[in-house]
């Protein structure tokens, strides 16, 4: 009995006490509620719409798209592009991170800004610059076409180039801050023990940054498979040849093949969800081995 009284006063105290570092309960509930509503409307609704529209007329109709030759060609092309663009940017990302994080030289900050550039350039503009540079009526483009028979614009090479442009920052900007934080001590130790530069990289640096590398590859790949604006400008939309999955979604949609469009879109949405889950898992499991700071891309 006495015990119960004691507990009652204790709870009263906990309730009566106004913590100086949190908000009143009602405020908290309203804020959480508002956040849930906003995120539901702006994020979950579009995601749900993709799957609902895709399955609107049943699973058989949903599966039809996967026997559509255009759709299959688009899936193949998208995989091919990711298979080229991601490794290219992987090599670039490692090289750029090594050069920027391991050494001090004037212009480092500028170089970092330059690497961030694609994030603030419109994808359409990104596509346009390659048309101007490599189009058949430009000097370089004409030379490539006439002397080598290589068509870049409105062909697969152009689509690959555009994808590389919009995705090249992802891996580099994951690695640079992390390698800067980790400093040079490990590598210097390895080299003082007689390791070559390659050995230091392979046995010391790489194990230290492997999760950040995977994180960057994940984001790079998601964007490479999903890029629309830059690719749209450069592909010329030749069916079965230069049309990627996102472009094929657009073509289906504009031809009022809504189910086909959303079915193909659902594959991309699934990819996005897998990416998000893998990304969250990495952030949760290896938080200390990823770059800290803002994740704004």
């Amino acid at each position: 009995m006495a015990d119960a009284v004691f507990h009652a006063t204790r709870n009263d105290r906990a309730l009566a006490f106004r913590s100086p570092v949190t908000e009143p309960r009602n405020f908290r509930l309203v804020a959480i509620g508002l956040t849930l509503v906003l995120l539901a409307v702006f994020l979950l609704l579009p995601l749900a719409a993709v799957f609902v529209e895709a399955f609107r007329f049943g699973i058989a109709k949903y599966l039809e798209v996967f026997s559509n030759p255009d759709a299959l060609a688009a899936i193949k092309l998208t995989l091919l592009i990711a298979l080229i663009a991601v490794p290219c940017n992987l090599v670039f990302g490692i090289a750029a991170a090594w050069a920027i994080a391991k050494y001090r030289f004037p212009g480092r900050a500028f170089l970092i800004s330059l690497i961030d550039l694609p994030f603030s350039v419109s994808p359409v503009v990104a596509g346009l610059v390659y048309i101007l540079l490599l189009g058949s009526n430009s000097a370089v483009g004409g030379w490539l076409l006439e002397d080598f028979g290589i068509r870049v614009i409105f062909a697969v090479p152009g689509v690959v180039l555009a994808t590389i442009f919009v995705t090249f920052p992802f891996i580099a900007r994951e690695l640079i801050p992390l390698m800067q934080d980790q400093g040079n001590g490990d590598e210097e130790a390895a080299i003082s023990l007689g390791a070559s530069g390659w050995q230091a990289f392979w046995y010391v640096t790489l194990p230290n940054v492997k999760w950040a590398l995977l994180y960057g590859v994940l984001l790079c790949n998601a964007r490479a498979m999903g890029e629309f604006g830059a690719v749209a400008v450069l592909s010329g939309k030749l069916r079965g040849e230069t049309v990627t999955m996102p472009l094929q979604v657009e073509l289906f949609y504009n031809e009022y093949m809504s189910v086909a469009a959303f079915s193909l879109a659902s594959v991309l949405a699934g990819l996005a969800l897998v990416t998000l889950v893998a990304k969250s898992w990495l952030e949760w499991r290896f938080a200390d081995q990823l770059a800290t700071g803002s994740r704004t891309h």
Partner: protein
Amino acid sequence: MELGIRNVQKEFGGFTALKDVSLDIRSGELIALLGPSGSGKTTLLRLIAGLDFPTGGNVFFGDEDASLKSVGERNVGFVFQHYALFRHMTVEDNVAFGLNIRPAATRPPKHEIKRRALELLDLVQLSGLAGRYPSQLSGGQRQRVALARALAIEPRVLLLDEPFGALDAQVRRELRRWLREIHDATGHTTVFVTHDQEEALELADRVVVMSQGKIEQVGTADQVYDNPVSPFVYGFIGDSSVLPVRVEHGEVWFEDRSIGLKAHNVPSGSAKLYFRPHDIELLDGCGGCIAGTAGVSRRVAGTKRVELAIGGAGHRVEIELPVDHPAASRSRIAFRPRRWKLFQDDIEAPNEVALPQPVAA
């Protein structure tokens, strides 16, 4: 402002951070809460401030029960270990913050706020830095700003949580002296938390020694140093040496011999003998003394500390010798503590069992 802490209890989850703590602080006193980390000293300070609430018991400001008053209503000046300055405000704006946020009815006019802020910056010897940002100041300067900011609201009590903990030794000593001056000039009731005994003993009117959520002893520097009431206080404040002894019929025995210390009205049984390494007298022969073989010695400022291995078990105690003392390694040294204390074993509550006076052999 007098402070009364009555039977305060604080639990975090299942962990009891404060166990039935009572303490009275007189108006205008400078009090140090001293203890190792985890002793509950910061928790107690935060309960006084109202940054947290006691699970049981009450905190009185004068006659008024402040236990459930919010921190804003208590009007306390609180100085944090890491300064907690507002980085986006200038020094002057930091100091004026507490006045600027008052409701229009009680807010002094603008020029008055400015005057008071500058006056306080003068008091903490930072005049001329009013326009700087915290990031442009040194650690010691930041802590002065933090103090000026706390004083600006004319607090009823001033609370400081390890105020010098993040500063280097030189700055600490300087600021310590200066805090005493400020305290004497402003006359605030002041409570500060520290784990540095030197700081507590030098600065405070009274020292509150805490351990494991309880108050071990409250007293002046002399009291807690010369007359510790528990083995913990003896061990925590100042250097001490300990020897396991036995009391038999009012005499203190170590192993098979009497060491010449009288312990009247102490029940027979095993006990621990505490003494300060420097508070001993060296003896030539040994008819009732502690004798041991000198081991490693080290130089501490103007004296020499020698480790002695005592008795058959080779029990190690430290004593202090003059630098020019000829005691070489492995030589035999006999001594007897001048001031000492016995704490009986096997009694849960530390029990004062011996007189503090030196006892002649």
